[in-house]
């Protein structure tokens, strides 16, 4: 039984626009401590156990707040103040009187992490179970994370309760807070993993793709050795670190947009991960459209 569960639906960004649209799918927002010992915030459709959103939440890193711009007033967001990403949900519980309580409970569970074995979870609240009608498109004016954030700037979440009856909890909280880096949602990848010399080496066949050749620094041989010389250089590593830093910082998703790649500000995927997925999409499309872009210029794969 999860620590917290309430009926909620998702809102998704309509592709290519800044408008959030409510998805009719009936779902649950849940919070629970998973096998990794961490507090997870998740959303799933009610007819399956498979979670569509599943993020680890740390205190002071994320907040759950009402979106005041919404006309029906029951839209909430899981907000990461230090990045431009938000996850949006609408309340599906019949009785809106409990919305605020749920909001507080979500924030409570975020702030009160299970840090010692003696910590006990809270009983989930049982609520009345009736259907709520689907809200209309959230508002006339497009809601962007920026405007939503601005609108709710004055609705600050209750301050984290760091005082604890157990001294080791307070210590642990302090440790975590001190070590916290401002980051977005949990799901992300490290591009160095993908692009480090050891992992690039097997990708380079005897003849390099034209597209890659065009991106090489001047005076670089268009050979395996030439490319590996570049990929093994400290300047390459530094440039990659800098690129990844920029991607995963505030406004980093805009870089993807500037590169002409699809971006989803309402996704729980970090920027590096979204980059990979965007490239996956491109690669699959090019595959379907013909083999001109395959590495060694051979016919398309079946």
């Amino acid at each position, binding site marked *: 039984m999860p620590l917290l569960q309430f009926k909620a639906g998702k809102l998704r960004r309509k592709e290519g626009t800044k408008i959030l649209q409510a998805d009719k799918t009936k779902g649950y927002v849940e919070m629970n401590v998973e096998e990794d010992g961490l507090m997870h915030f998740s959303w799933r459709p009610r007819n399956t156990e498979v979670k569509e959103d599943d993020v680890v939440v740390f205190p002071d890193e994320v907040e759950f707040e009402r979106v005041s711009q919404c006309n029906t007033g029951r839209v909430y967001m899981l907000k990461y103040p230090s990045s431009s990403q938000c996850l949006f949900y609408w309340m599906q519980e019949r009785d809106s009187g409990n919305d605020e309580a749920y909001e507080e409970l979500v924030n409570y569970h975020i702030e009160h992490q299970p840090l010692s074995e003696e910590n006990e979870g809270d009983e989930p609240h049982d609520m009345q179970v009736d259907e709520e009608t689907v809200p209309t498109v959230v508002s006339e004016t497009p809601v962007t994370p920026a405007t939503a954030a601005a609108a709710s700037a004055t609705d600050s979440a209750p301050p984290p309760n760091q005082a604890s009856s157990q001294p080791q909890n307070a210590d642990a909280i302090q440790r975590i807070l001190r070590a916290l880096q401002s980051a977005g949602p949990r799901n*992300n990848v490290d591009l160095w*993993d993908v692009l480090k010399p050891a992992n690039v080496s097997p990708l380079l066949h005897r003849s390099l793709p034209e597209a890659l050749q065009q991106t090489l620094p001047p005076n670089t041989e268009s050979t395996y050795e030439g490319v590996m010389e570049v990929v093994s250089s400290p*300047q390459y590593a530094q440039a*990659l670190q800098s690129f990844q830093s920029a991607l995963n910082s505030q406004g980093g998703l805009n870089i993807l947009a500037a*590169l002409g790649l699809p971006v989803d500000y309402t996704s729980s995927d970090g920027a590096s*991960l979204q980059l990979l997925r965007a490239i996956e999409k491109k*690669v699959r499309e090019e595959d379907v459209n013909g083999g001109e872009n395959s590495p060694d210029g051979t016919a398309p794969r079946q």
Partner: protein
Amino acid sequence: MSWSTLESDAGVFTDLIENLGVKDVQVDELYCLDVETLQQFQKIYGIIFLFKWKKQADNFDGELDYASLDELYFPQQIISNACATQALMSILLNHTNEIDIGNDLREFYDFTKELPADLKGEALGNSELIRCVHNSFARADPFISDESRPATDDDDVYHFIAYTLINDKLYELDGLQPAPICHGKCEKPLFASRVVPVIQSRIAKYPPNEIRFNLMVLSPDRRRIIQQDPSLSDTEKTAILAVEEEKRARWKRENQLRKHNFVGMFLELLKLSVKDQIDKGTWNETLQQRIQSHTQNQLEKRNA
């Protein structure tokens, strides 16, 4: 009109001053601060000392020498990111008799030499030529980072100071001070033995575990000196020259890579990687592994 931060690298500095028109001067990193190592340089124009600078008032050795403002070239530092180039200028422009600084810098020198220290500094900050050459060595970073935020006490702000002999006196030229600091009379042959303890004393003012220092020496182009050295045989000359040329080639390559915008290459390599995994049917599995390992790393950082 902004100045980028530069990597503290001898190859960067050597190329930078060459691009400004300076002839036959090279910058080398000094890995050992001792008299013997310095004495291996037949001639030293000056030493640049890079260190971490705290924002409290420094207590320094030597004396502020306001009178010397009329005798030597001392620009005050106006722009923080320009301090590497500032330090280089402080040395070069005090040895205009010995160094061919080229037409552009000669013009700059003539135009600014009578100005007070703060206006010298402003002129340097406003110099289109110097700023452009300086910035051309910054990493090709297409993303504007938050460089303009002011330094706080917690920031590691690196600072450059130049040490050089002018009129037989050992001077410390620190653009954040109101005047040059004089460490007393010093004849040319004694420069190495005098400057080492001065710098060591400076290092001693920092916590012992503070090891982030860089030392750079400005000296004449070694290749020339080797050619003209009567005490070396031809074979010896060839060997030393080969080493020197190899170093120069390496520097040149590093600067090329520094200036290169890698984003295009990253995207093409990512495409190859993704394609490869899709072909092998390992895409989903590998992606999940990567996501998990990222979460794991984040956790470890938090629990550290």
